[in-house]
């Protein structure tokens, strides 16, 4: 049966159900229990934003509060995964990934390849992504492209509670390392989610709105901004197709190409910095594989190539807006041929 829950609750429920189902699933992270000596839920924070709240009371030592050393516990999680566990490590802010990069891109991502398919690393690294949290340049980045660049890593960034639960369960059951990106501005949004466990494959984009005039390809918070733009554009008689990639690696290029073939126009919307991001990748693939379908130039909507500003006014300007997305769609329609 489905009921409405938030993305935060969807993450919690996915972890809860997988920990109940499979004793090999463990959680590690900073403050995910609540502090050393926590006497159960009463004293347990459940992570910096309370996402893992309540799990310690149920699963006890299968949740491990780690020292403030990302390189140590991400390495430990990867090692445990290589030895048969299914760890879910919470890295709090994706911005902190830098200190454990060797563990992730040179070890976890390479084991299957380097050991001739004999080793698997079923680890999930959860991290918060995105701007809008007034948390300044070191806690606000959308670093998804750093990870899609690495063969051997899977990268997921959901936009709804339904997708969050299904994709996280699939990520935990997946036998490869998955970087699971949770947008902090979306934790509170609610949607219908079945109570039972379910999985969504890590290779399928979702079509969240159908239209024939232009395709918007995006993910994460930008899905919601694109839906806002679509509502505005619909009043002008412009109907957009919105593709929510959900999984950034592997990438469901077939759904993107189908959409562009139908509409003939493409706007890529990405909250990541504009150089070598998901938008540039999608643009390049479409230009190579569906050039003859295009009736107009491809447009991209991204933040400027700057750190995320701390000034609230500037931060709001930094994040791509529905108005910018709508303007880009209009540009493809004006610039194109009928």
């Amino acid at each position, binding site marked *: 049966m489905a009921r409405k829950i938030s993305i935060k609750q969807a993450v919690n429920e996915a972890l809860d159900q997988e920990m109940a189902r499979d004793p090999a699933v463990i959680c590690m992270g900073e403050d995910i229990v609540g502090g050393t000596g926590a006497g159960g839920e009463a004293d347990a924070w459940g992570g910096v934003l309370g996402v893992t709240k309540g799990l310690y009371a149920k699963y006890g030592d299968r949740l491990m509060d780690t020292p403030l050393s990302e390189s140590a516990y991400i390495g430990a999680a990867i090692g445990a995964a290589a030895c048969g566990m299914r760890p879910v490590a919470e890295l709090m802010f994706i911005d902190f990934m830098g200190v454990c990069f060797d563990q992730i891109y040179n070890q976890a991502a390479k084991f299957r390849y380097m050991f001739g398919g004999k080793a698997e690393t079923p680890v999930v690294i959860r991290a918060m992504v995105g701007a809008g949290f007034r948390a300044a340049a070191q806690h606000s980045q959308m670093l998804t492209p750093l990870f899609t660049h690495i063969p051997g890593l899977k990268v997921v960034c959901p936009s709804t509670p339904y997708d969050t639960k299904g994709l996280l369960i699939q990520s935990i059951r997946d036998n490869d390392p998955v970087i699971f990106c949770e947008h902090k501005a979306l934790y509170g949004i609610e949607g219908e989610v079945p109570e*039972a*466990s*379910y*999985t969504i*494959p890590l290779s*399928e984009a979702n*079509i969240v709105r*159908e239209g024939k005039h232009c395709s918007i390809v995006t993910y994460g918070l930008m899905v919601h901004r694109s839906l806002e733009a679509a509502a505005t554009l619909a009043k002008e008689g412009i109907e957009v197709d919105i593709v929510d990639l959900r999984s950034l690696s592997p990438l469901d290029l077939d759904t993107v190409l189908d959409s562009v073939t139908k509409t003939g126009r493409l706007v890529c919307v990405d909250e990541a910095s504009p150089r070598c991001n998901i938008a540039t990748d999608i643009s390049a693939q479409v230009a190579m594989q569906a050039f003859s379908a295009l009736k107009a130039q491809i447009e991209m909507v991204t933040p400027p190539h700057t750190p995320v500003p701390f000034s609230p006014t500037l931060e709001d300007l930094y994040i791509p807006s529905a108005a910018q997305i709508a303007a880009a769609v209009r540009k493809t329609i004006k610039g194109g041929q009928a």
Partner: protein
Amino acid sequence: MIITPIIMPKWGLSMKQGTVVSWLVDVGASINVGKPIMEVETDKIASDVEAPDPGLLRRKIANPGDVFPVKALLGVMAGPEVTDAQIDDFIASYVTPVDADDAEDGAAEQAWQWVEIDAIRVRYARRGNAQDGKLPVLFIHGFGGDLDNWLFNIDAVGAQNPVIALDLPAHGQSSLTLAGTTLADLARFIAKFLDALEVPRAHLVGHSMGGAIAARLALDAPARVASLSLIGSAGLGREINAGYLAGYVAANSRRDLKPVVEQLFADASLVSRQMLDDLLKYKRLDGVSAALTELAAGLFPGGQQGELPVPSLAAGGIPLLVIWGKEDRIIPASHAALAPKSVKDAKVAVLPGAGHMVQMEKAGEVNTLLKAHVG
């Protein structure tokens, strides 16, 4: 003076609004009961709105492209004796009734009820009332389906008889536990379901696998079955589209599922994004794939129908109606000819322009046939 409002229909329990696609008749046209008046589209499917009563189309209120809530006024029918002023008054005083299912927050849930049978939680819907002493009609869906397969039928038949539709075990929103993998097991489960609802006797309407279950119950407990209506039914001949069954069970993405589901309809364009998303939400639940695999192995071993109860009905006295979509690609319409002709009032209707989901594609004709049969 009789003025008949044409209103936005409610197709299925979750429908809140619909979009008017086009009018199919002009103002001034004389309309018979059941004639398609306009085409309406929901996020699930498009279909025709049919005339509830005969009359003249006097006024069009809705324009193509307009979105209206359920039960909103779309047009007006009336006889020639009614004046334009009277129609203006009628329109001005029309108040869209609040949808009972929508009265409160979370109301979609109230449209459904739940009952537990053998530790299996069963979702069902109940409509209409028994004031005329009419027996209830029980709708039984097919393999992989759910009670929303009857979204165009429940309210129409419910206007005449009380109606009940359920999600079979491991289907829809019922528990993901099978109640067995033989027709006898499933028929027994239906009998227990009727016991739980305190329904001693009912008209059974079964689609596909649901038809075979209904026929099995008619053989095993004839006293409980007032009549049988079998739609695109299993249980008549051996043949069944094994590729469809395997494809439906295996598909886990929209890309894989779409061509499979399109086989259910004569008009493949009826398969909407929402329909596929809803099916995927069900199919992706832990346990569904295993349950469907087991059920298919039990009922359709080797890609053929294992049990054929319908021809054995010949000796019984239960009235039989057989409906088929002529372009059925799952169970061939030629099986309609295998219906036993000696059964009381046996009637066979093969409807052109419809596939396996004939009760959706030709809802008006199917509803007329069902109402006459159970009447």
